[in-house]
């Protein structure tokens, strides 16, 4: 997928999600919160399928791991981050729909784990020489 296609995909889903969120928050529609988060489910689903296909591609016979693609550890982290984000969105929707009486702190735990992981990953990119040491 080219950069333009990826940007367009992200842009469209973000725009649709923002519009649906605003319409719901302003009380114009009485839709279910799970329906409001539909663009998030679809976008995350596409990302998880893409990641799974790329990870499965490494298991093919004759695959050369030195072809420059990110290693399996990084792909596994991406997949974990996506699942954590999905977990956060699902529990948030359940809380907003009052399906489960859970504290916001517990809802946010997957989000915090994901953000901490992303911060570590970014930090390692800012100080690459320490990664090699």
């Amino acid at each position, binding site marked *: 997928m080219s*950069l333009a296609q990826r940007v367009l995909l992200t842009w469209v889903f973000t725009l649709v999600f923002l519009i649906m969120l605003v319409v719901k928050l302003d009380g114009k529609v009485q839709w279910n919160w799970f329906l409001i988060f539909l663009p998030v489910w679809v976008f995350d689903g596409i990302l998880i399928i893409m990641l799974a296909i790329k990870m499965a591609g490494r298991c093919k016979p004759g695959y050369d791991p030195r072809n420059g693609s990110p290693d399996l550890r990084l792909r596994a982290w991406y997949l974990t981050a996506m699942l954590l984000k999905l977990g956060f969105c699902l529990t948030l929707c359940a809380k907003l729909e009052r399906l489960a009486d859970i504290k916001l702190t517990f809802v946010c735990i997957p989000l915090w784990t994901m953000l901490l992981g992303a911060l570590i990953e970014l930090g390692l990119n800012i100080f690459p020489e320490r990664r090699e040491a």
Partner: protein
Amino acid sequence: MLFSLRELVQWLGFATFELFLHLAAILVFSVLVALRVDVSTLKLSWWLVFVPLFAADGLSTYFTAIVSIRLYQENEKRLAVLRLLWVLTVLSLKLVCEVLLCQKLAEQEQARDLWFGLIVSPLFILLQFLMIRACRVN
């Protein structure tokens, strides 16, 4: 994930350190929101909850000013002005959205006329700018 870090830096126009700063601010902000909602005895004001986001915007502006001055001194005048304009536009749109949201949450009775469509409108404008920039980067 969908974008490499290099692509994100090119598209958003922020340095890796600035992305780190904003991500850290979101983490602290989400912790404060959870505390504000769950611990009613804490009595945190919404303006205090939004402080990490405001601080990240301020630090990012400072960082951008320093980088632009250095670029200007190294005779990269066009790049310096373009970078400064872009980052200031993005940060000011983000700041307007944050301030409006904070006002809505802090003064729910007085800010009844402040509807969410208006609060999120800077983000819609920002999305258009990001799309235009994506075409340029591509």
